[in-house]
C-alpha cells in the first residue's frame, strides 16, 4: 500500500519540465496520431527524390491524361498526363514546409510584439498596436502582393509576405491573453525579487496565456496553405508548373466533375496536414498545462 502511494511521486520527480510535457503529451492518443501523421508526411516529402525522380513532376504525357489511380500512377494523372503522386509529394515541400514556416515565424514575432504590448501597456502598447492595426487594415492578399512587388518573387519572399500578413492576428491574441495576466500577484512576486521584464514575460506570463495562441496557430496553418495557392494563382510566388497543393487543387478544379480524384487527393492532403497540426496543437496545449491530469 505504502509503496504504491510512493511510486508515482518517484516517477515524476525524475523528470525535467520538458520531460513532464512529453510524458503528458504521450498519453493523448489523438495528439500522438497527429504527430505521427505529420512526421510521416514530412518524411515522405523529404525523401521524395529517393523514390520519385523530379522529372515525373513536369513530364507531360498527353496520351495518358486523366488516368484514374492505378498501379503505375498511384494518384492518377492530370490533364497533361503528369503523375499526380509525384506532384503531390514534391508539392508538399512548398505547401507543408512553407505553411509551417509561416506559422512559426508569425508565432514568434507575434508573441514578442504582443507580449511587449500587453505587458508594458501605455505608450509601448499604443505604438505597437497602431502599427499592427495598420497591417490588419490591409487585406492579407493585397499585403502579400505588395511585399512581393517590393521584394520580388520567389519562395523566400513569399514566406516573408505571408508571415507579415499573419503577424497581426497573433499579436492581437497574445496581447489580449497577456493583459489579463500581468496584474496577477505571481507577476508582482516575480517583480519583487528584481526579475527582468523579459524573464517575467517568457517564464511567468506567456506560458500561462499560450492556450488560445496555440489554437489560433493550428488554425492558421490551413489558411496559409490556401493563401499560398491563391497567390500562386495570381502568379505571385509559386506558379505552374512548380507543384504545390493549393495550385494543384485550383488548376484541376474544372475537371472535378468527371475526374473527382484530381480535386480530392490534394484536398485530402491539405486537410490531413491541418488536422494533424490541430491535434498536435490541442495535445500541446493540454500537455503544457500542469493542471490537466497526468
Amino acid at each position, binding site marked *: 500500500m505504502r509503496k504504491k502511494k510512493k511510486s508515482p*511521486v518517484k516517477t*515524476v*520527480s525524475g523528470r525535467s*519540465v520538458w520531460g513532464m510535457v512529453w510524458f503528458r503529451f504521450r498519453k493523448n492518443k489523438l495528439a500522438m496520431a497527429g504527430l505521427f501523421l505529420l512526421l510521416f508526411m514530412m518524411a515522405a516529402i523529404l525523401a521524395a527524390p529517393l523514390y520519385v525522380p523530379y522529372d515525373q513532376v513536369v513530364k507531360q504525357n498527353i496520351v495518358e491524361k486523366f488516368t484514374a489511380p492505378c498501379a503505375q500512377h498511384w494518384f492518377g494523372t492530370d490533364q497533361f498526363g503528369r503523375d499526380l503522386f509525384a506532384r503531390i509529394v514534391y508539392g508538399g515541400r512548398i505547401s507543408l514546409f512553407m505553411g509551417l514556416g509561416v506559422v512559426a515565424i508569425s508565432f514568434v514575432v507575434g508573441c514578442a510584439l504582443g507580449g511587449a504590448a500587453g505587458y508594458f501597456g501605455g505608450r509601448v502598447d499604443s505604438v505597437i498596436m497602431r502599427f499592427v492595426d495598420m497591417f490588419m487594415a490591409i487585406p492579407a492578399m493585397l499585403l502579400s502582393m505588395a511585399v512581393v512587388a517590393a521584394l520580388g518573387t520567389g519562395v523566400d519572399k513569399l514566406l516573408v509576405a505571408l508571415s507579415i500578413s499573419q503577424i497581426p492576428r497573433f499579436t492581437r491574441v497574445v496581447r489580449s491573453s497577456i493583459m489579463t495576466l500581468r496584474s*496577477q*500577484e*505571481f507577476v*508582482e*512576486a*516575480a*517583480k*519583487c*525579487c*528584481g*526579475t*527582468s521584464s523579459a*524573464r517575467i514575460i517568457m*517564464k*511567468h506570463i506567456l*506560458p*500561462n496565456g499560450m492556450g488560445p495562441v496555440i489554437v489560433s496557430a493550428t488554425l492558421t496553418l490551413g489558411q496559409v496553405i490556401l493563401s499560398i495557392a491563391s497567390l500562386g494563382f495570381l502568379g505571385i510566388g509559386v506558379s505552374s508548373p512548380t507543384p504545390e497543393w493549393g495550385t494543384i487543387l485550383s488548376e484541376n478544379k474544372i475537371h472535378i466533375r468527371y475526374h473527382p480524384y484530381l480535386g480530392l487527393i490534394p484536398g485530402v492532403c491539405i486537410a490531413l496536414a491541418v488536422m494533424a497540426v490541430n491535434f498536435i496543437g490541442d495535445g500541446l496545449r493540454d500537455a*503544457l*498545462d*500542469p*493542471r490537466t491530469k497526468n
Partner: protein
Amino acid sequence: MAVPLIETRHLKKYFKTPAGLLHAVDDVSFKIQPGETLGVVGESGCGKSTLGRTVLRLLEATEGEVLYKGENILRYSKRDMKKVHLNMQMIFQDPFTSLNPRLSISSIIAEPIKVCGTLKDKGDIQKKVHELMEVCGLPERYVNTYPHELDGGRRQRVGLARALAVDPEFIVCDEPVSALDVSVQAQILNLLMDLQDSKGLSYLFITHDLCVVRHISTNIMVMYMGKVVEYAPKDELFQHQAHPYTKALLSAIPTTDLSRRGRERRALTGEVANPIDPAPGCRFAPRCPYAAERCKQPQELKQVAPGHYAACAMCQP
C-alpha cells in the same frame, strides 16, 4: 536609538484618475526596528496594500522617502534595487493567484534564487529549496507538485518559502492570512512569529483583522483614507485609543465574554468619503460623532503618550 531597518518619511502615492488625484497613501511616516512588526490596519481601500507596495517600489511613490538602513531606496537604480530586494520581500494575500500555476513548487521557490544569483550550483539551489520547505513546514514529497494540487494553507507556506529564499531581513505581509480558514490562519501566524524569532525578521503586517494584528504586532498603525490616524505600541493602542476611528474599529471586535454583552458599541454610520481630491481637514470628520468646526483644519499626528501618536483635534499633546 539605532538606525531603523525601514523608515518612511512623508510617503505619498497618488493615482491619476479621470476624476482627479486619488490620494491612496497620503503623508505616511513610520519606522521599523530590526526584529519588530508594524501592523497596519484599516478598512478596505484605505491604502494599506498600496503602502506596502510603495515601500517595496512595486509602485513608484509620488513623493517622500523610503529609507532602508538610512538610505533612500527611491533614488536607487535598477541594479541597486536588486540588492535591496535581497533584503526586502513580500507575501501576498491570495495564495491562489500569487503562485505561477505553470511552475512546480520547487521551481517557484528556486526562482528568486536564480534571478538574484545568490546560489549558482544546481545542487546547492536544490538543497536550499529543501531547507526552505522544511523551515516552512512543507513535507518534502510536495517538491514536484504544482500549486493547484495544494490547499490554501500549504500554498501560503510556499509563498512564504519563496519570500525567504533570498534570506531577507524585512517582509511585507499583505493580508497573508485573510484568505485562509481560521485554523490555518493560526498556523501561518505562528510560523511567521517563529521565523521572526529564529531569523530576526521584521514585518510590515497589513491586515484588516484586529485579532490578528494584536497577536503579531509590536506597534500598530491605523489608517483611514490614506492617512495615519493613530500610531502606538500594541498594548497602548488596545487600552487607550485616542482617535474616534480607532475606538469605533476596536469596539467592532466580536467578543465571547457574556458579561460584556450589553456594552456600548460605536458602530460607524455612513460610507467612506471619496478619496479623490479630498478636503484638507480630517478625513474621518464626516463620519465622526465628535466632529466640529476645528476638524476642517488639517490634522497633524500629535504625541498623546510616550510613543503614542494620534491625529485628532480632540487630542491634546
